[in-house]
């Protein structure tokens, strides 16, 4: 069999899903945080279920971080930003960058929910020649803004996006989501200085503060605290929230009120939503058994 014969077709728009997304996300954006929260929570549960089945199919993935970041992804893409699945390169779209690219399963599941490609393509996650690589690739996956995976990359790129919008005098926004362990990368603090220096009020950097990195707790590895004070001292407006409270997240994703870039420190739980995975270091990239997936889906259907 030649490689051409087993290659997956390119990812293309899911028209039905996109139509729902465009209508519903416009409505959710306009609602108050408290009003939008119940629906955002429902979508998040659906994404968590998709993450689990996606990882089950691939027998690979980073389930812990996927589940901690889900509410942030959903609130950004469904409740805050204006994305365009019909024209993923629309120059006036808002930009969403997932800097913690190893959580590709959560990103792909959310992009599919927005209609960028059909949800059933998630079964190809990490399959040979699939466009759904283990880390996001913008050339292959519509809705991905830049290729991430090595840590410390998404934030400088997002800073460049925001600077570009500022230079053009355009109103679109950029949200970048970082892992907390990732804040140990020096490149992020370079970007933090640049964004503050240029007064990028159109940029929101979100830290998925689940307090665990691959090998251990962040504070036992190389401590990040006081993280809010670090951001503040770099010239950012800081908002510390419960990263699983959709109303709080939506509120925190509101534009800057100070003319400074906004840092959201979102306190989260790694493995959130599946009791036996929550806050346990081994679920960074452990693959659940079929029985564990069944139990997890059961918890997520309550």
């Amino acid at each position, binding site marked *: 069999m030649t490689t051409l014969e087993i290659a997956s077709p390119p990812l293309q728009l899911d028209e039905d899903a996109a139509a729902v997304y465009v209508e519903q996300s416009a409505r959710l954006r306009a609602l108050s945080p408290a009003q939008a929260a119940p629906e955002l929570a429902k979508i998040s549960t659906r994404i968590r279920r998709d993450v689990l089945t996606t990882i089950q199919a691939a027998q690979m993935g980073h389930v812990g971080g996927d589940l901690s970041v889900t509410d942030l992804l959903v609130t950004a893409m469904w409740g805050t930003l204006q994305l365009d699945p019909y024209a993923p390169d629309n120059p006036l779209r808002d930009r969403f960058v997932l800097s913690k690219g190893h959580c590709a399963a959560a990103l792909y599941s959310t992009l599919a929910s927005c209609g960028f490609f059909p949800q059933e393509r998630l079964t190809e996650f990490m399959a040979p020649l699939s466009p759904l690589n283990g880390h996001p690739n913008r050339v292959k996956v519509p809705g991905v803004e*830049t290729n991430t995976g090595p840590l410390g990359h998404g934030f*400088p*790129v997002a*800073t*460049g*996006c925001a*600077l570009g919008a500022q*230079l053009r005098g355009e109103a679109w926004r950029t949200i970048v989501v970082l892992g907390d362990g990732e804040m140990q990368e020096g*490149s992020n603090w370079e970007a933090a200085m640049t964004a503050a220096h240029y007064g990028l009020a159109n940029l929101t950097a979100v830290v998925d503060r689940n307090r665990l990195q691959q090998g251990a707790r962040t504070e036992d590895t190389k401590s990040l605290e006081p993280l809010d004070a670090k951001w503040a001292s770099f010239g950012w407006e800081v908002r510390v929230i419960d990263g699983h409270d959709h109303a709080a997240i939506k509120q925190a994703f509101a534009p800057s009120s100070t003319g400074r870039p906004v840092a959201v420190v979102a306190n989260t739980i790694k493995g959130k939503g599946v009791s036996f995975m929550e806050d346990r270091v081994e679920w960074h990239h452990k693959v659940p058994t079929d029985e564990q997936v069944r139990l997890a889906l059961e918890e997520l259907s309550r």
Partner: protein
Amino acid sequence: MTAVAERTPTFDCRVDFADELARLARADERIVAVCNDSVGSSNLVKFREEFPDRLINVGIAEQDLVGVAAGLANAGFVPFVSAAAPFLTARALEQIKADVAYSDRHVVLCGQSPGMAYGELGPTHHSIEDLSWMRAVAGMQIVVPADPLETRSAVRWAVECGRPSYIRIPRFKVPAVTPEDTPFETGRATRLVDGGDVTLIAIGTMVSRALDAATLLREQGLSARVVNMTFVEPLDVAEVLAAAHDTRAIVTVEEGLLSGGLGAAVARVVAEHRPVPVRMLGVPTFAPTGSTSFLLDHFGLNAAGIAAAAREALGRV
């Protein structure tokens, strides 16, 4: 060097780089310059005066420099990242790989003061590795202008090329070597002198020295072809194969590390398709203390050294 070389006017190509960039920026609002406190060393002070908003200085932060440029490309700009070649290519190598090349962003990386241009400042400031590193990045186009005219052509080409590219801009002064109406196309070399015994394939600061070597060889009864390769990637494979077919040996000359640069690129083509003797001239290791001129002579990167390598390759030491 020879009396001829002393009389020939020489040029700092940074001047032409900056002048051409500003000229294009007047008509093309997509063009921005991105620096790491390298505004002066890139000769971009005038650019900043004319386009204060379009000269972005991220400070001394090379990873951020390249990441921000990729983001500006995402926003529809054509960023020219201008920084000292050693720091741009080494410190930001993963950003060049992931954010620019793998993300297929139209970012123009401009390596200033490459090779051993920083002479006495030593190997930390030398950029002898940049060609090897950039060749190891899939999809990266690598351009090494040899003189002011080629520098201007490279800048114009880079605005339109639409893909990741690296331009290595000489600071060490070079004479003009490119005829006025020479076409500048992706992956196209220029045959400056024809000859039948040996082919000298050179880039950048070494092209004029290869021409001088051809003169020396002619005095010694040997006919040398001189090719300015210009693009290390994509290499002009047809021109390399023509050299292997028409002449008996090839000498490559670059102001760069012998592992992985122009010589390695040429040798791969020759070894795979038409083996002939190849001698590679370049920098073998970290340089000792000395001026750029001194170091080039020290490593045999001058007319006499190139001619000697050509004779050796032809078995006529």
